[in-house]
C-alpha cells in the first residue's frame, strides 16, 4: 500500500510541473511573447546557466542569512517560550510584545535595523530572525501548555520533580507543536532574508538573490530575474522538505500527524 502511494505523491506534482512548463513554452512561442515581457522557460534556463557563478554566490549569501536567522529564531524563540511557561504573569506581560513583533511588517522595521547595525550581513540576519521567531515562540508555548491533565496528575501523584515533569512530559508533549513552528519559521526566515535585502539593496560581493532580482529589473534582463526567483522558490521548497523529514524522523513512531491513510 505504501510504495505506490509515496510514488504517486512525488510523481503527480512533477508531472503537473512539467505540463505547465511545456504549455508555458508553447504559448510563448506561439504568440511570440518577447523575453522582456515574459520569458519562456528555455530562456530562463539559459540565463541560469549563463549567470551560474554569480547566481550561485548570491544563493549562498541568501541561504547563509536564512539559516543564521532560522537558527537564532529557533534558539531564542524556544528559550522565550520556556520562560513564558514558567509563570502566567510573565506570559501575560510579554506575549503581547511578541505579537507586536509579529504584526509589524519587516519592510517597515528593516530600514531602522539597517541603520542601527553597521554590519550588513548581521542586520539582514536580525531582520529575518524577527520575522521567523514568532511561530517558534507561540507554537512552543502552546505545546508546553498542552499536556494531558491526566498524565500531569499521574506525575504529581508519583512525586515527580519539576525537572522530571519537564523532561519526561512537557517536552515530548510540546514536540509536535514545536516542529510545526519550525516548519513555518523556516519559510519565514527565507522570506525575511529576501525582503530585508530588497530594503537594504546591498550589492557587491555579498549580494544575495534579492539584489540579483533588483539588478536584473534595472537592466530589463527578465530571464535572469526569473532565474533568481526560481532559485528562491527552490530554496523554500527544499527547506520545507527538510523540516518535513525532521518531523517524520522525530514523530514518525507515535504522532497522529505522521499516520498514513490506510487505503
Amino acid at each position: 500500500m505504501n510504495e505506490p502511494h509515496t510514488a504517486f505523491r512525488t510523481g503527480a506534482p512533477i508531472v503537473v510541473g512539467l505540463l505547465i512548463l511545456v504549455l508555458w513554452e508553447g504559448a510563448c512561442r506561439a504568440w511570440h511573447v518577447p523575453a522582456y515581457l515574459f520569458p519562456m522557460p528555455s530562456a530562463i534556463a539559459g540565463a541560469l546557466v549563463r549567470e551560474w557563478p554569480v547566481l550561485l554566490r548570491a544563493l549562498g549569501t541568501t541561504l547563509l542569512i536564512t539559516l543564521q536567522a532560522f537558527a537564532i529564531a529557533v534558539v531564542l524563540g524556544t528559550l522565550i517560550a520556556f520562560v513564558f511557561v514558567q509563570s502566567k504573569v510573565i506570559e501575560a506581560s510579554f506575549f503581547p510584545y511578541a505579537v507586536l513583533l509579529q504584526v509589524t511588517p519587516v519592510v517597515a522595521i528593516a530600514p531602522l535595523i539597517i541603520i542601527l547595525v553597521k554590519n550588513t550581513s548581521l542586520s539582514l540576519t536580525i531582520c529575518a530572525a524577527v520575522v521567523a521567531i514568532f511561530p517558534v515562540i507561540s507554537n512552543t508555548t502552546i505545546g508546553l501548555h498542552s499536556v494531558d491533565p491526566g498524565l500531569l496528575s499521574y506525575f504529581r501523584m508519583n512525586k515527580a520533580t519539576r525537572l522530571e515533569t519537564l523532561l519526561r512530559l512537557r517536552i515530548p508533549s510540546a514536540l509536535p507543536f514545536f516542529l510545526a513552528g519550525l516548519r513555518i519559521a523556516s519559510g519565514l526566515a527565507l522570506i525575511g532574508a529576501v525582503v530585508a535585502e530588497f530594503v537594504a539593496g546591498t550589492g557587491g560581493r555579498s549580494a544575495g538573490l534579492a539584489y540579483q532580482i533588483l539588478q536584473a529589473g534595472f537592466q530589463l534582463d527578465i530571464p535572469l530575474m526569473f532565474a533568481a526567483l526560481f532559485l528562491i522558490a527552490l530554496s523554500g521548497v527544499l527547506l520545507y522538505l527538510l523540516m518535513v523529514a525532521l518531523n517524520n524522523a522525530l514523530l514518525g513512531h507515535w504522532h497522529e500527524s505522521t499516520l498514513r491513510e490506510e487505503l
Partner: protein
Amino acid sequence: MTGATGPAVVELRGADKVFSNGMRGLAPIDLCVQPGEFVTLIGPSGCGKSTLLKLIANLIAPTSGELGWWGEGFERVGQPGHQIAFVFQEPTLMPWSRVDTNVRLPLDLDHVSKEQAAPRVDAALANVNLTGFRRHYPRQLSGGMRMRVSIARALVTDPDLLLMDEPFGALDEFTRNRLDDDLLRLSFERKLTTIFVTHSLYEAVFLSTRVIVMAANPGRVFAEFRVDEPEPRGDDFRTSARFAELSRELSKILHAASVAGGAEA
C-alpha cells in the same frame, strides 16, 4: 470475612468537600476499608464518587474531617507496604513511549534502576497478557489493550491499595467482562485492597466484597451492600441465579438512592 489484622487501609472520619465555588461535593463521610476488601463506589452522576476516590488518593484535600492511610498521614504513603496505585478513566499513557517504557514510568520516577525494574515490568506485562506487545506504541493497541497497559503500570509498583476511577467505562461489554475477570484474579492472587468506581451495577456485584451506594445533593453514602460470594469468581457466578438476585437487590437500592438524590433519570 476479611479479618482485620492490622490498621484499616483507609479510614475517613467526617471527611467532606466543599468546592471553591461553594458547591458541596461531599457531605461528611465515615468510611473504613480493611485489608483485602474490594470496595465499589456506585451511584448516580453527581453523587461524589469520583471526588471521594480523589480524596482517598490525596489528589484533593478534604475541607474538614480527617483521613488516615494505614493509621497514619499521607507522608508515609509510597514506602514499602504503603504503596497506592491509581488507574484513571482514560489509559493516560505517554503516546511517545513504547508499552514497556510506559509501564516502567512509576519505577523510573521512584529512581529504581533499569536492571531492577526490568523483571518487574516483565511480570506486570505478563499479568495482563501483554508480553508480546512490549515494544508497541499505545496507538497500535486497541482500547482494551491500552487499559491493560494502564493496569500493568499500576501493578508494577506492587501496590497495597489500588484505586480505580471507572477504568472500563469506555469499553464494550465483552472487553469489560474480560478485564473484570483479570482484575479479580489479580486482586485475589495478590491480596490487593481495591477501591473501584463504576456506573455498572453488574460490574459492582461481580467484583465487590462490599458496595457503597452513594446519593447526590449533597454527595453522601446512602447504603452499604455486601456481596458474600467466595473468590475466585468467574463466568459461573456471572450467570448464576444468585448473581441475578444480588443484582436485583442492588438495583432497588440504587433506584432509592437516585430518588433520594433528586436525580431526574
